[in-house]
């Protein structure tokens, strides 16, 4: 045992501040350790509330031996021996905990670690309590600490005289029933962990809710006509909360339009809907829902949400951040899939195994491009292999990435949690992790040919000028012309965006594919035969430490928990169709996770980013429990029964009264007290527009949004300093980003803009667009000062405000009408008298200001000149947005007002 103050290091490690590290530091919720026993699960809550003394019912003395065999020794093994026994040569603190004699001898403190019969005098017990003044808390990691039940085991065992039976007696004891686990907890069947302890450990059944088959749930009968509302009303009643009233017509049409399409409703749309409601047209709302579901923009909005989950980007990340010129086809495939209301089970299969579906001839050849494009999903993560990297390692990185991506996206499981060891909380053995990897072992990277679909053809044709320009640039870039290797490598990839290629995979024997070459054609079909790469279980996730070989298989817990209704599929060890087997298993209606996970996401997308399970990528033991478990299961079942149709699910959700509620509540005090987080949905949850919605909304209001769908990504306008900052690459300094040449190209919808991993648009970043290295399950909604900087001073909102003001000036004659038009376009309403007065006063003052101060000359030409060094003619061909010097003082004053309106909360939040 380590006495506190034994040496300097440990002194430093002491928590001198006690537990008062509130607010930021400690994992202050003391989760029961992963080794917790089933008894502890039932008692834990009570214990942590302090209502139970730590001393639990004493085990009778005769139980001491059994307690040691069943509980104490496994505990010592798991918690202590890594430092105090496993490595004889390196016993921390010179304490050997492998034997009773070692414990009785003690360590550097020269005191026995245990005093049989006297836990209160035993340093071992005092250390695991972590509260003793003299003895250092053990194990040192807070995360590993023993829970109250476990410390009680130690205490009881010492009280019983610290018996330490010999091996023969131990074996005998272990054959007897485990009396400490008879009451609670279940053992589950998996393929087995690295230790028997793990394989046989027990789980609190309620923690494994997501692994269980969907429950058959009946809609509560409480007078609510909409099934969703019936579930919600039950919970509200329990909380003694009354629901808010329905939102007014203007709020509803604006809310629904933004939610379903990511674009604001126009003044006309608002007016039309209000009128229909005034006329008492009962189906007005339903008709609005249908119209929006049929809009091209519906798919764009849903795609943007899905792309968060799959961490879509147009570049490869890491050092060179090479462009992935054909990634856009996957993005468009997602838009198309949502617009076509592709059944979600099919959507899953295509992304995981589109190529194998083609090979198995399940689909007609005409659809094959789409099926190939879908598999780009498998390669969306950051990945690079250069001459500086080790091929086996970069291959392993991809295998790890793809397994985690599939787990995150479709199963709501964080797979990396059982990469290095059996899962600490969930019934997921590390063997299953590598078995899943074996499914992907035959997949090899290639740029596959897949003819453009008609809509792709059209999108590419619309970008003909850009296409020709990139071709010319690629041909002309050479070091002789002062273009360094880094820039050449970038430019040589550009023309490929217009070629009918897919960043995909084929099944075959191992093949090196580095990322430095611009293209990677697949070998001929007859050259794709051979031995498939074998996959081994890797100890501690390390390639250098392989254990036994594993065969392709899916997660064993699922069938183990299905009571025989959903068997694990056999996956042939041959090269092909491993992924199809996996995809079919995931997309099976009996799979307990798949439907729950997607239904939960869709719910969260509509309800202001508040899913029923607040950890959409983690449905495991440590994920959050659903707020409305019955509703979740009912929805999942309904979804499957309705052909996995996302559109039907959307319709079901947004037609509920819960969705239509006002943000306001009749009893705000009561609401603040009972449900400050809004999880019982007494009101519609308030949310800010996402970065993309905000950008698109400003462009739409200003009349500049280019609605052109699909095709290679658009280089949007970005803060100039950020856009043109040079970057250091292996092959020199480069300016990797430059905005497109014309306003129309720059002003396309955000979903179509260029997503560069190493150069994120600061505008997007500051409004919480997530980094795209990892899957994003839910967006943050921060309020940070840089948002104010960028909204007041940034080029983007200022340019939009000027364009908006210019349009208003063209059409209208006097200030009052102009202000009214601005209000209609932005909020779908007329200003109040107060507002009108304020705006008039501001306009007048700004007009005075602008008459006094002529506009400063824009510096855009100077800024773009830098690019011409590596891209000739860039500066000459660049067409800037309208600049202040091109506008009258009156328009500039009006632009100032428009900017103010863009900054208001009423514009920034979903009504």
């Amino acid at each position, binding site marked *: 045992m380590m006495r506190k103050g034994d040496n300097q290091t440990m002194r430093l490690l002491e928590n001198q501040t006690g537990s008062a590290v509130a607010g930021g530091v400690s994992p202050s919720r003391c989760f029961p350790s992963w080794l917790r026993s089933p008894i502890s699960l039932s008692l834990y809550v009570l214990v942590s509330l302090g209502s139970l003394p730590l001393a639990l019912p004493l085990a009778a003395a005769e139980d001491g031996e059994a307690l040691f065999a069943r509980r104490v020794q496994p505990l010592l093994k798991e918690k202590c021996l890594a430092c105090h026994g496993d490595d004889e040569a390196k016993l921390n603190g010179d304490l050997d905990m492998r034997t009773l004699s070692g414990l009785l001898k003690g360590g550097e403190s020269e005191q026995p670690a245990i005093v049989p019969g006297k836990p209160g005098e035993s340093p071992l017990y005092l250390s695991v309590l972590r509260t003793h003044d003299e003895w250092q808390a053990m194990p040192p990691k807070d995360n590993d600490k023993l829970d109250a039940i476990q410390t009680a085991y130690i205490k009881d065992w010492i009280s019983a005289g610290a018996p330490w039976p010999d091996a023969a007696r131990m074996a005998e004891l272990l054959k007897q029933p485990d009396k400490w686990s008879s009451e609670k907890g279940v053992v589950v069947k998996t393929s087995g962990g690295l230790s028997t302890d793990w394989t046989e450990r027990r789980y609190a059944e309620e923690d494994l809710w997501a692994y269980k088959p969907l429950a058959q749930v009946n809609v509560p009968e409480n007078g609510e006509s909409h099934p969703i509302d019936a579930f919600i009303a039950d919970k509200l009643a329990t909380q003694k909360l009354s629901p808010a009233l329905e939102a007014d017509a203007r709020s509803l049409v604006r809310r629904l339009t933004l939610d379903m399409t990511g674009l604001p409703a126009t003044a006309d749309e608002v007016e039309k809907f209000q009128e229909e409601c005034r006329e008492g047209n009962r189906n007005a709302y339903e008709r609005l829902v249908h119209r929006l579901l049929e809009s091209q923009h519906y798919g764009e909005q849903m795609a943007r949400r899905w792309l968060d989950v799959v961490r879509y980007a147009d570049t490869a990340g890491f050092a060179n951040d090479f462009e992935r010129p054909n990634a856009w086809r996957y993005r468009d495939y997602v838009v198309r899939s949502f617009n076509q209301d592709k059944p979600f089970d099919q959507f899953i299969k295509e992304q995981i195994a589109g190529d194998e579906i083609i090979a198995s001839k399940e689909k007609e050849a005409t659809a094959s491009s789409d099926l190939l494009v879908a598999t780009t999903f498998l390669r969306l993560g950051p990945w690079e292999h250069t001459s500086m990297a080790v091929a086996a390692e970069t291959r392993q*990185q991809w295998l790890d990435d793809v397994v985690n991506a599939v787990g995150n996206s479709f199963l709501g499981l964080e797979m990396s949690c059982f990469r290095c060891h059996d899962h600490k909380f969930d019934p997921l053995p590390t063997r299953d992790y590598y078995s899943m990897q074996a499914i992907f072992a035959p997949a090899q990277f290639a740029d596959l040919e897949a003819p453009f679909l008609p809509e792709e053809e059209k999108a590419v044709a619309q970008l003909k000028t850009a296409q020709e320009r990139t071709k010319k640039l690629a041909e002309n870039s050479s070091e002789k012309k002062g273009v360094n290797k880094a820039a050449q490598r970038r430019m040589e990839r550009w023309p490929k965006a217009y070629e009918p290629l897919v960043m995909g995979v084929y099944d075959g024997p191992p093949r090196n594919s580095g990322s430095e070459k611009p293209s990677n054609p697949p070998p001929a079909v007859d050259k794709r035969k051979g031995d498939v790469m074998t996959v081994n279980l890797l100890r501690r996730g390390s390639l250098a430490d392989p254990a036994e070989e594993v065969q392709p298989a899916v997660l064993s817990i699922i069938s183990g928990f299905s009571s025989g209704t959903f068997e694990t599929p056999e996956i042939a060890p041959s090269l092909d169709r491993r992924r199809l087997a996996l995809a079919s298993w995931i997309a099976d209606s009996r799979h307990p996770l798949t439907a729950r996970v997607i239904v939960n996401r869709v719910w969260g997308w509509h309800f202001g980013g508040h899913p029923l399970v607040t950890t959409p990528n983690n449905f495991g033991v440590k994920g959050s429990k659903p707020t409305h478990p019955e509703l979740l299961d009912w929805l999942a079942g309904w979804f499957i029964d309705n052909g996995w149709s996302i559109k039907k699910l959307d319709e079901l959700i947004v037609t509920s009264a819960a969705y239509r509620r006002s943000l306001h509540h009749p009893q705000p005090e009561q609401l603040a007290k009972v449900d400050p987080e809004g999880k019982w949905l007494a009101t519609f949850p308030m949310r800010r527009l996402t970065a993309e919605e905000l950008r698109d909304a400003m462009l739409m209001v200003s009349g500049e949004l280019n609605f052109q769908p699909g095709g290679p990504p658009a280089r949007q306008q970005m803060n100039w300093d950020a856009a043109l900052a040079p970057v*250091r690459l292996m092959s020199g300094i480069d300016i990797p980003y430059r905005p497109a040449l014309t306003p129309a190209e720059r002003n396309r919808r955000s979903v179509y803009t260029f997503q560069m991993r190493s150069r994120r648009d600061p505008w997007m970043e500051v409004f919480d667009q997530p*980094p795209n290295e990892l899957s994003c399950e839910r967006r*943050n909604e921060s309020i*940070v000062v840089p948002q104010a900087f960028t909204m*007041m001073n940034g080029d983007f909102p200022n340019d939009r405000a000027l364009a908006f003001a210019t349009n208003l000036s063209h059409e209208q004659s006097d200030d009052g009408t102009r202000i009214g038009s601005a209000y209609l376009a932005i909020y779908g309403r007329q200003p109040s008298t107060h507002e009108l007065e304020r705006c008039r006063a501001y306009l007048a003052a700004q007009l005075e200001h602008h008459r006094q101060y002529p506009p400063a000359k824009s510096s855009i030409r100077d800024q773009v000149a830098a690019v011409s060094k590596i891209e000739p003619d860039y500066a000459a061909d660049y067409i800037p947005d309208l600049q202040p010097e091109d506008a009258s003082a009156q328009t500039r004053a009006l632009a100032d007002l428009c900017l103010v309106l863009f900054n208001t909360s009423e514009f920034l939040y979903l009504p």
Partner: protein
Amino acid sequence: MSRAKFPCGQTSWISRREMFHGLGAGLGMVALNAILQDELRADAASDPLAPRPAHLPAKAKSCIFLFMEGGPSHIDTFDPKPKLKEMEGQEFVRQGKFVSGMAGGKRYFVPSPFEFAQHGQSGLWFCDRLSHLAKMADELCIYRGLTVDSVNHPEACLHFNTGSRFGGEPAIGSWVTYGLGTENQNLPAFVVLPEAAPQGGPANWSSGYLPAQLQGTPLRSQGAPILDLEPRAGVTSESQRRMLDTLGGLDAEFQKQFDTDHPYAGKLRARIESYELAFRMQASVPDLVNLDNEPEYIRELYGIGKEPTDSYGRKCLLARKLIEAGTRFVQVIKGDWDAHDGIADNHGKALAVVDKPVAGLLADLKQRGLLDSTLVVCCGEFGRSPDNGMRSGKVVPGRDHNPEAMNVMLAGGGVQGGRYVGATDDVGGKAVECVHHLRDFHVTMLCLLGLDDNKLTYFHSGRFKQLSQIGGQPIAELIS
């Protein structure tokens, strides 16, 4: 123990505290907090940027991390290997199961082109290109036992800066700020002073899954120090004031619809207040980063106004000003250390850039009494090899990447100077004494700043995450 309510819980609805996390800005938290007090009665302690007591007693309160991207050679700076002179040109066989394409082929030993001498009372060795830093010998602790995992720049950079080779996790500066908060609420808590974006990009200073305001804020050396900090050309202070008043008026009108007790009201109030803070910071930040008002002898100390030290000297001086003003963590990034093609030329140039500014920074911190409370760490993402392969078919006196040996320079922050900890072998190929993995070094850095890696955790995607990823041991010899 008072079990605080902090976001390690697995069941977070969008909670008050989460909403709160969204609020700070990394800048200007105090006022926002005041606004939110009503909402936060229950959670008063959970402001991620409020200054907080350390876990452990420690001298260092803040940190300047001088990151040398590209992998400086220990053999040609702090760790002389005279034996390499004898072995010059001899063939060297690299062992190891996983080698990159770069490390294959015929290899040979390369001696250092620089001369070495001992300096200070402690007699630490310095190459002749470190004449200024040599004067600070007795302040420096050179750690020679560190090993890392990756030989590839971007992964190794991300590993050093975030604890993960693949990015997406919080940077050290974010973790430290998460642990200690910051002293000046009107400045970013974690500042990055980059040259060009390093390999691996901004992921090197990302806050990962920690609250957004803990992200590193890159301060630019030219133009506005923070993007869009400055009003556009032609916008006067009066005009901007008018804008804010109008905005405030309109927003207040909108907010009236929400009863003050309404859970959403605080959000709206905080947003209004963030504009006022922005307005104030437009004045205070440029003032801070303006180095023109520094006296000439200070500018001289850092080599400002002379080449090749001007640019790096400015960053070092700014780092000192920020630390003095209460910023918690400043990372200065300097590239151009990837000396495959010639140590003499490459390191000769790079050392000329950093020698005087780094020495100046240490001297300046010391004379202001800040050195004790400021931990200064200087190193690259890995060390370099004693040998080189052929480059473009030629034999050139350069060096490859080496994850198995490197030197780290530490100063201040309670680290005892004038000594070595650990050692590399006689050619500088491998660390052989006091050998520790990078995760232990991360734990040590935190420890020197009074933070316990095992307590500095955040619950994310199924487990408590920490800088060292899986826990580590502090390097006792460095903590004195």
